[in-house]
């Protein structure tokens, strides 16, 4: 098993500040704040090749370098996206609940690097346990002089505040999250301006995912060169793969980027449940196009997944066995996007409703071959047209299932019923 640095070793409780410090915790933040300039922190993170773990995979160091130099007219902020709500994704919760001080240490270093006045962590409302664990950790860190005025014995001030979402998926989109954090509906903003120019309260803001900042302490302590020895040249470091669905041992596994998908399914997750055959895999949360069993040898990194027509996304892997109806899977996902569209772009608001309706009709045995064409055409109109990527994701999911499993969709039309009697229900 490769070395972990995000999740605590099995049987170790790192939630208290004492336990975390005993393991060398807060050494990285001490080093960064006392021995390094903010600019050199940015350089190390840039050099490490760390890419965002929230789905888009943007280079973290580069994102940080977009922030203005200090002394400008407005304060800068670090906004942390802890809204984890991409279906199939349940990894950030593991960090927040099991290693809260690692996350705080990452925020402290990140906040220092971008000259932030404070960090605001936007936690999805349902994650009440993560909220409580982090509240305790923040209280401990303040008490120990690691947050607040004069943190780490410096003349700086930096604090971390928790905010709570209330069940809207769209608030995981960075500008939707900013709107929500300002006390509004989470409807994404047009870009430009990008958050680095005008984000939270119209101030320069960097938005980073929970896991992304949690990689930073290890990079500072052990160096960019060490980090690059893990993973692939373009996808460095470990990542948290969440695996769920029809496997024997679902869960979150910390593994190097580039680990073969088949190894994650067969070795780490214990293979497909009940000895059944593998049928389909969503590799990175439901926004990413589905793969067939024949593609399971792909390496789980950004470039390899692109080559097979999907994306790494959040690394949330959903496995489906031979009993699962692909139209039903597409229905569940289409229903989700129909529910979560914020409604401000017509293509998305109307398109998500149409995709769901068409898929329901096909599943009920009332679809036609023209309906399959309509799914493709509606999907086409939804891509690249809207303020944010929710519309694209909804289109990719539906058209992805159709393209990869067309014969099964056609069988629903020809047989006028679902040909998979043992399938799960949507």
């Amino acid at each position, binding site marked *: 098993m490769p070395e972990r640095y995000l999740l605590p070793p099995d049987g170790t409780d790192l939630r208290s500040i004492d336990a975390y410090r005993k393991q060398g915790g807060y050494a990285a933040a001490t080093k960064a704040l006392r021995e390094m300039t903010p600019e050199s922190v940015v350089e190390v993170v840039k050099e490490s090749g760390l890419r965002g773990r929230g789905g888009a995979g943007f280079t973290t160091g580069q994102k940080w370098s977009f922030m203005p130099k200090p002394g400008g007219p407005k304060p800068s902020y670090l906004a942390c996206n802890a809204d984890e709500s991409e279906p199939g994704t349940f990894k950030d919760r593991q960090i927040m609940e099991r290693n809260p001080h690692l996350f705080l240490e990452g925020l402290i270093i990140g906040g220092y690097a971008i000259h932030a006045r404070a960090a605001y962590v936007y936690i999805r409302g349902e994650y009440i346990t993560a909220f409580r664990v982090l509240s305790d950790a923040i209280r401990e860190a303040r008490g120990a002089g690691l947050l607040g005025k004069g943190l780490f014995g410096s003349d700086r001030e930096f604090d971390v505040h928790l905010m709570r979402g*209330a069940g809207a998926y769209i608030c995981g989109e960075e500008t939707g999250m900013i709107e929500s954090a300002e*006390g509004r509906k989470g409807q994404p903003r047009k870009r430009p301006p990008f958050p680095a120019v005008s984000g939270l309260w119209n101030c320069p803001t960097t938005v980073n995912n929970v896991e992304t900042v949690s990689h930073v302490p290890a990079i500072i302590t052990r160096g960019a060169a060490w980090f690059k020895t893990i993973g692939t040249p373009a996808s460095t470091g470990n990542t948290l793969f969440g695996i769920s669905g029809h496997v024997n041992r679902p869960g979150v596994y910390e593994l190097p980027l580039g680990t073969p998908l088949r190894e994650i399914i067969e070795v780490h997750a214990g293979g497909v449940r009940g000895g059944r055959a593998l049928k389909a895999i969503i590799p990175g949360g439901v926004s990413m196009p589905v793969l067939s069993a024949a593609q399971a040898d792909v390496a789980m990194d950004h470039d390899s997944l692109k080559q097979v027509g999907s994306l790494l996304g959040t690394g949330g892997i959903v496995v489906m066995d031979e009993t699962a109806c692909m139209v039903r899977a597409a229905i569940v996902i289409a229903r989700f996007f129909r529910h979560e569209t914020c409604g401000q772009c017509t293509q998305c608001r109307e398109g998500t409703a149409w995709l769901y309706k068409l898929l329901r009709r096909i599943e009920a045995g009332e679809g036609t071959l023209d309906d399959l064409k309509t799914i493709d055409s509606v999907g086409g109109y939804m891509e690249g047209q809207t303020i944010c990527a929710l519309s694209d994701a909804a289109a990719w999911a539906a058209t992805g299932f159709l393209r990869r499993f067309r014969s099964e969709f056609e069988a629903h039309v020809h047989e006028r019923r679902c040909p998979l009697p043992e399938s799960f229900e949507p």
Partner: protein
Amino acid sequence: MSAVASGAPLLSAGLRETIAAETTKYPQPRSALLIALHLIQGELGYVPLQAQREVAELLGIKPIEVREVVTFYPMYHEHPVGRRNIQVCVNIACALGGARQVMRGLEDRLGIAPGGRTPDGQYSLEEVQCLGSCGTAVCVQVNNEPYIENVKPGAIDELLKRIG
């Protein structure tokens, strides 16, 4: 809504104090709106119009700006829900794990449909989207409490016992 007619404020003094303390964390008090609504719902069980008007005044915004938020976010309820509001995730990992059977089992046992409430006000039932607990499907959340995980479709009695 009877609370509208009576002149007494709906939000307690303690609650108002907590909300006021929240506003100090942000450059704009309005940013405390979502957490304020959670606090109100925690105390009242839902967020009636009168409470919306009162929180609008506390944060210096219009009541409609509060209502926009209350109705946009699925976790807030404008009308009373059951004492135990049962939310079953029906998204992909939970669906693969039998969420539909869990849902049907609860509907049968409680005699209500999704979105419904039992006549005695004890239970209400909702379908919800992914709760971020895909590795421990099926996942159920009651009110805003820690999750009930690994729910098995055949074990509705046991689930109801855990729901309480």
